[in-house]
């Protein structure tokens, strides 16, 4: 069985994001970039499924600029067998429907049995691409997975939902999107980083996939939300309680 794991290059989750002077983009120069944390978890799961013999080949793919090769190399160092970069501009890479169309074209062309991906990219917070891909492929989907188990041609998934957990099973092929608690991704060791340098990384363009994509949503501007300011900080318990009594916040 062959699994595809998409990896998105995003600003690291610890970075305080800034808006650039055009008011249309965020600042990425000299900013730490990482694999989207959810995608790292998806890849960890795929690599473990390979190690336990369920999956034969793990392929990572990133949609974006040449810079995404850095995240693909990390993915190879974590244990993926080969990598594909679909090079395109940022507008396409940040548009879930376009990314879903690209992934769907790849899945059909190269015959994958399973797509394991993040539930959400922490930059645009869309939480859309996996569900869209499943829709385009007419495959079943299992989103927000916190536990995955395999039987012959079926997977069972515990999904994290607002009320608790929702357990479903799907026939393969299927798309599964993962939540944070599925696993803890491994640290990448130096020998593995060296080894990853010799693994195949193939670059393709949208033309190669015979795709012509124009996102239907146009970004007009970016702004910061109204900041919350710090109020009154107490070190004395009695004064704190007195204040809350006076302001009637308990009611």
């Amino acid at each position, binding site marked *: 069985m062959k699994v595809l794991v998409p990896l998105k290059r995003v600003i690291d989750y610890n970075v305080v994001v800034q808006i650039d002077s055009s008011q249309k983009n965020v600042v990425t120069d000299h900013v730490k970039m990482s694999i989207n944390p959810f995608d790292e978890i998806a890849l960890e799961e795929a690599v473990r499924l390979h190690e336990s013999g369920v999956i034969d080949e793990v392929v990572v793919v990133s949609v974006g600029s040449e810079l995404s090769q850095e995240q693909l190399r990390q993915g190879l160092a974590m244990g993926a067998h080969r990598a594909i970069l679909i090079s395109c501009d940022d507008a396409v890479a940040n548009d879930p429907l376009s990314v879903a169309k690209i992934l769907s074209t790849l899945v059909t062309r190269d015959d994958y049995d399973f797509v394991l991906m993040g539930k959400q990219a922490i930059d645009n917070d869309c939480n859309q691409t996996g569900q869209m891909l499943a829709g385009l492929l007419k495959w079943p989907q299992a989103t927000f997975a916190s536990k995955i188990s395999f039987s012959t041609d079926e997977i069972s998934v515990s999904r994290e939902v*607002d*009320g608790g957990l929702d*357990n479903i099973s799907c026939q393969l092929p299927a798309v599964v999107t993962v939540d944070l608690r599925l696993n803890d991704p491994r640290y990448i060791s130096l020998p593995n980083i060296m080894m990853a340098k010799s693994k195949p990384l193939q670059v393709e363009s949208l033309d190669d996939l015979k795709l012509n994509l124009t996102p239907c949503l146009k970004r007009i501007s970016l702004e910061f939300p109204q900041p919350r300011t710090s109020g009154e900080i107490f070190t004395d318990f009695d004064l704190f309680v007195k204040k809350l009594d006076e302001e009637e916040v308990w009611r």
Partner: protein
Amino acid sequence: MALKILLVITHNGQSIDDQVHNAVTACLQLDVNYHAMVLGHDCQSVIDEARKMKGLQKLFFLEHVSLEFGLAEPSAESISQFISDYDYILFPSNTTSKNILPRLAALQNISPITDVCEIVDKDDRIFKRPIYAGNIIETVQSEQDINILSIRSASFTKTPISSEANVDIEHISPDLSSIQSKHLGCEITKLDRPDLVGAKVVVSGGRGLGSVESFQLIYDFADCLDAAVGASRAAVDAGFVSNDYQVGQTGKIIAPDVYYAIGISGAIQHMAGMKDSRIIIAINKDADAPIFKSCDYGLVADLFDVVPKLVKHLKK
């Protein structure tokens, strides 16, 4: 020009999800009335409630056994058949809609706008939505004729339901292709406290609580205030509470009147889920904890010392 609007009502089989009432407000910002749709099986109480929604003109009830548990495939396929009749399809933003909406959009070749926090211009189709865990607000314009939105409940007030049912129901049995997913069961957390989503007061505990046993302090405090209980991801990861308590970028996004953050540092991913609360109160023993930069009232103290004292004070 009048807009044609369809609201998809999410529910748990018994009652309408709380966020639907916020989405009704968004519908009414778009026009004076709208149509709505319930998908399910054998859920009369949901229908009875839905019929009372303000401004509702027509209610579709799509009934099918496969729709009972909100599986994405049959749900998206069913709604898909109605899309072309409308300018706007709205969903409340919650895990049910997050599962269904993007699939539906892809089936129709539409780019949806999710977690809308403001409708800037309904005719020019300009919307605002938070990105980067709510640290940035993006303004986007859609060039599409049909738009699918999900409504971020923390950004819209609730429209209360009226006392009487206003509309008739159109009952539809959708014709569905074979479904390759199966619902196995739910592990729904039973609460004897208010639900986190929609609660007026929320008390959340973080890693600072230290253990499942100590988390009891949070429940005791919450009970004094008739509050819902929430948690940081660190508290969920440590096993103090289950995943449905998580507040934040990847958990629930709430905006209660009063939010208590106890033993929570205030990471941006946590703030993303509660910074629209009217009043934020923090208790933390570290005076430099980031939470103190964005709270209304803060107490620098050991929670194990002060929370029991607060409970005592409130019981008086």
